[in-house]
């Protein structure tokens, strides 16, 4: 699974992306657990940061598989 970081999450992890191996299909909470296990400092962002799966916002129904691209979307500020 390719994981993309933007804005503050990129600053915190010090990287724009990482590869993470997952098995089966996981929900949002499980993906967060895996992310925090890989990068513990991401825990600070869980409440404010949305996940996207293949370019669309994830919700409670979303299931992630290893082939997906996940992006961490902190609060946006465009315009």
């Amino acid at each position, binding site marked *: 699974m390719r994981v*993309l970081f*933007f*804005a503050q999450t990129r600053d915190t992890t010090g990287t724009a992306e990482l590869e993470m191996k997952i098995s089966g299909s996981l929900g949002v909470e499980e993906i967060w657990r895996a992310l925090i296990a890989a990068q513990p400092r991401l825990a600070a962002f869980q409440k404010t940061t949305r996940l*996207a799966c293949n*370019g*669309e*916002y994830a919700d409670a129904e979303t299931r992630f598989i290893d082939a997906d691209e996940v*992006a961490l*979307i*902190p609060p*946006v*500020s*465009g*315009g």
Partner: protein
Amino acid sequence: MEIEIQITSQPIGAQKKMPEKFSGSAGAFAEFSGIVRASENGQKIAALEYEAYSPMAESEMRRILETLAEKFPCLAARVSHRLGIIPVGETAIYIGITAKHRVEAFALLAGFMDRLKQDVPIWKRRSLTPAEFAALKKS
């Protein structure tokens, strides 16, 4: 509704106009430009730097425009958002809405900007002080 979205690192010029093909059918052309101000959080700045998750930013903008157009039917929407370092006084975002009537054009424009600021993955990454911006231009 015709939708044209551009995410660019280049300056957004003033060349945008109502699409010629709607001449005769359109009764309104509403434009908005979001421009970088000289202060950010009370600090004097010379530029802002923007970044985006570009593929998703484009698809989210399209989705928002299509959703709003169901309620406020318009003929066309053009959006350009600039990324990278944008000096004070220059345009960060441009929107041009072509419609039959002004009410729909204004409503779509205002609704789009509100949603953009909630859902489109674009970020102001940092502000540059005049000294930082001058040093960057020299390098």
